């Protein structure tokens, strides 16, 4: 078992509780021992970075510090936006001793331990797409997906900017496809899988956001996908919940089921509904589950 400091972020704690429960249920099956961070806050979701960036840096340094205090080498995230925000802050601190010293003085003066021992911020996707995690995933996914056609949707902030994220080629990623296939599904290719779901501006500029959101869903439907999978709960929220708004815009009722990464693997690993919590989705996942049970 690999011990990791688990940072679930806002959505998994609130509106996407199904992401948290499925991740926790899946973790022991793929060799991850989660030590959940308690004394942590929101990473700022890019918004605090765009409102009060110095506060953003300190909030994230505080999260990194508590992750370091667990003794684990890895801070595990389950959200693209958390991944980018934490990795960016981490690089800023690791690459600039003067800046880190200033932030550490501030942390200590409010009673937070200084961030001394570096941790590596890694998304669950990366843990499971290669090396030991991938081997364990293949064993865990014993139930399979009966060749279901799954459309991978990466979301932006797990690929770009690649110098901060850097796990795979941002233009030709393959981690989600590898996982889908290891679970016994068929990965569907479509152009918009690397593009934006529109979520960051879905409240402030809904029309623009919906113009982005429609592309991946429409293309996944046209490519014959049975469901889509995403490693990001923000993409999940727009793809799942805001999908219902696309009907008014496009006249098409897509009804495309959207799965969190942990849920997709969870299904293949035979985890029960009590952990996967598909009832919390706006677009029903039933048609997919029925095909698997048939």
């Amino acid at each position: 078992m690999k011990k990791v400091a688990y940072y679930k972020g806002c959505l998994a704690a609130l509106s996407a509780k199904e992401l948290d429960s499925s991740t926790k249920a899946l973790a022991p099956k793929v060799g991850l021992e989660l030590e959940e961070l308690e004394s942590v806050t929101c990473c700022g979701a890019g918004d605090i970075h765009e409102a009060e960036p110095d506060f953003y840096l300190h909030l994230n340094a505080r999260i990194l510090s508590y992750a370091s205090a667990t003794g684990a080498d890895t801070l595990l995230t389950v959200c693209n936006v958390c991944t980018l925000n934490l990795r960016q802050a981490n690089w800023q601190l690791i690459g600039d001793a003067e800046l880190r010293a200033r932030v550490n003085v501030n942390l200590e003066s409010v009673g937070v331990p200084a961030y001394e021992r570096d941790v590596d911020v890694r998304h669950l996707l990366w843990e499971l797409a290669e090396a030991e995690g991938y081997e364990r995933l293949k064993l865990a996914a014993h139930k399979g997906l009966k060749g279901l056609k799954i459309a991978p949707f990466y979301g932006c902030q797990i690929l770009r900017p690649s110098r901060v994220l850097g796990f795979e080629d941002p233009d030709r990623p393959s981690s989600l496809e590898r996982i889908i296939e290891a679970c016994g599904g068929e990965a569907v290719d479509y152009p918009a899988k690397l593009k934006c779901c529109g979520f960051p501006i879905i409240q402030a500029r809904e029309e623009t956001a919906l113009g982005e959101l429609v592309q991946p869903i429409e293309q996944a439907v046209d490519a014959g996908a049975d469901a889509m999978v995403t490693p990001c709960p923000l993409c999940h929220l727009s793809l799942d919940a805001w999908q219902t708004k696309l009907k008014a815009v496009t006249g098409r009722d897509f009804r495309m089921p959207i799965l969190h990464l942990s849920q997709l693997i969870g299904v293949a690993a035979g985890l029960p509904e009590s952990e996967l919590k598909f009832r919390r989705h706006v677009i029903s996942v039933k048609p997919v589950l029925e095909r698997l049970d048939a």
Partner: protein
Amino acid sequence: MKVAVKIWRANADTGDRALREYEVDAPEWVTLLDVLDIIKDRHDGTLAFRKSCRMMICGSCGMRMDGAAVLACKTRMYDIAQSGHVPVVSAMGNLPILKDLVVDMGPFWSKFRAVNPHLQPGYEEPPGGREFRISQERMNVIHKEALCINCGCCVSECNAMESDPDFLGPQALAKAMRFVGDPRDAGKVDRLELVNGKNGVWQCTRCYFCNERCPKGVDPRDAIAKLGAESINEGVDRDMGAKHAKWFVRSAMTTGWLRETELVPKTQGIVESIRQARFAIKLARVGKVPSPFPPHVAKDVKEARRLHELVEQQDRHGYAGIVQGEAALAKLAHGHHEGERDPYGPGSFPRPWLPGENGKARS
């Protein structure tokens, strides 16, 4: 060596489009631009593309290779030719194609002009007719933005602009930041008001394609974040996007976690929230609208609150909070750390999206 490329030929007058393959003999050091020159000189004189300096400074030869915007003169062909891959070359996205690889830059320049891309003097003249001196530290603020060569590679890939062509976009906004951060410029607040319009800062969807593609390291997305932070710092915060961002700060200070349910009225106002009631009920039915009471409070959240008080007293407000981290981020080499993986080899997916090709014609 032999170099093969496929080029999307296009003619705006006739509406004809066709993918043509060319194979040329070329020295090993050639760039994509050299290959296009050879094709035009020796194979097909009708091929249209823009070029001038051939050294990454004029910004003329922006185009797409395998769906990603590049400067043709910066793109070496040796590795690609050796791998046997035949790349697809096409015109940039988000701009109308005139012929082959030449796009109409008109919309690009009108957005560029819209942000008043020239210094607004009005600063205090140094006494005795001396020069206006600026410290290196002050110039570092706009170092990256000043590198822009107006090539359009960022605009080509902008996801928000693809959805709304009126979005000012990464190039114009980065240019605006270049003047907002200039200590000699007297028009800062007016500029911030300008970029807080409907098609300004808060329409950026944070897809980060601009940072990824910029051949000069401008990082337009970071420039947009700097404009946002400086706007809020200067009290230019009426836009829904600014209110949305400020609510995250408020949430982090009070409960630690995002107060999701209150985010909608705080961003859009009460009236719009009521208009959205039907949608909210749909979400609430499946538990997507967590109750704000009792609030979900993070342990030790008072530490976050005290950190906020502390940084407020320190001098890294507005864009300075982003600039301070740039030196460290600059140490990260562009690209990824998995050098062994062949991006064109078996098992890799073709680059998927070529605007103007309806997402269908892919190599």
